[in-house]
């Protein structure tokens, strides 16, 4: 399972992005995106904004689960009170990729209830929700800075480390 996480501002401008892999089932936390799909990820993620803007007015919930799917890429979304979107693209390890030597360990221990196997299972949704909530806490702290204005890029290495820690903890 590989993840691409981005925070998108109110003008559809990216504020933060981070790529990581699963740390569950012996994963090493490294993303397994192919060189080509890394560029596509950004496109796929941002193309889901249209869906997000429709869905966000149907429910007041901050966390909206999987909102969009493009082949094997699932997009989960979290909208903050200030209409900033947290988007997480998750790509379950496919059979072909799993047979590759790099992901060998993951494929043998994977069970149907694991977070990686089924992107729309309640367990996965709950794990992503925990991840998003923790990122939200740190995001609110970031915007509390008197020098931060809306839609400014978040450059703090401490913030990045916090997101990485949340990723390791839940995903």
């Amino acid at each position: 399972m590989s993840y691409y996480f981005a925070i998108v501002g109110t003008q559809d401008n990216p504020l933060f992005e981070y790529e990581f892999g699963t740390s569950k089932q012996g994963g090493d936390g490294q993303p397994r995106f192919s060189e080509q799909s890394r560029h596509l990820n950004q496109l796929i993620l941002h193309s889901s904004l249209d869906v997000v803007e429709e869905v966000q007015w149907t429910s007041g919930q901050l966390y909206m689960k999987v909102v969009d799917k493009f082949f094997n890429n699932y997009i989960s979304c979290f909208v903050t009170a200030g209409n900033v979107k947290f988007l997480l693209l998750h790509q379950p390890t496919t059979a072909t990729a799993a047979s590759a030597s790099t992901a060998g360990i993951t494929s043998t221990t994977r069970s149907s209830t694991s977070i990686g196997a089924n992107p729309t299972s309640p367990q996965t949704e709950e794990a992503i929700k925990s991840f998003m909530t923790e990122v939200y806490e740190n995001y609110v702290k970031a915007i509390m800075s008197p020098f931060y204005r809306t839609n400014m890029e978040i450059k703090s290495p401490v913030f990045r480390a916090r997101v990485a820690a949340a990723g390791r903890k839940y995903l």
Partner: protein
Amino acid sequence: MAQSTKPPANKDQTSFGSGGSGLRYPSNGKTIYHRPLNRTKTSELSQASFAYLFAEMVTYAQKRVTGIQDLEKRLNVQGHPIGLKLLDLLLFREPPRTQTRPLTIIALLHFIKVNIWQHLFGRQADRLEKSSNPDTPDEYMIIDNEPLVNAYISVPREMSSLNCAAYVAGIIEGVCDGAAFPARVTAHSVTGNTKEDEMWPAKTVFLLKFQPEVVEREALIGKGQ
């Protein structure tokens, strides 16, 4: 909370951060991310020091303007970013069950009346009203009988139309803009002859005029439910 990287212990307090990242840590090693977002209910600030600061803010703004409207505009701009930040902070502090984004104008106004007012002034706003004029269905009013910001402000006679609660109007405008309900918010003093108006000489009405697209969306959402 799991925490992977601790900021380096800053033995020499004059050294600037580490690793050439340009990041400076405070001498106690705690950044803004190490501080909790939740405060105890009793952490209140001194009203005297607020009144002093606010008076300075008004004076500062007044030195750089040409008229009353301009002054109110400046106060409004000073409040705007506070509203944007308060919106996220206060929603984050809500218990998970009620942690929902306001989807309708009423929900938003309720959030302002209860949460924002409670946080800023320690009490709720006094009344919410909708414009009774059929030509202006986009206008709503939040009424405060005794705005805290005006407690120690005396407006000179020749500037009687000035209301320094324009600062609070700016905060409200920030909340509305942040929640994707773009609006124009202004503060007005009420001088009437009714018994109620005489009881509250400082009574202030915050007039919220929402953009047409907000009203349009409101109608669509109402239909969907």
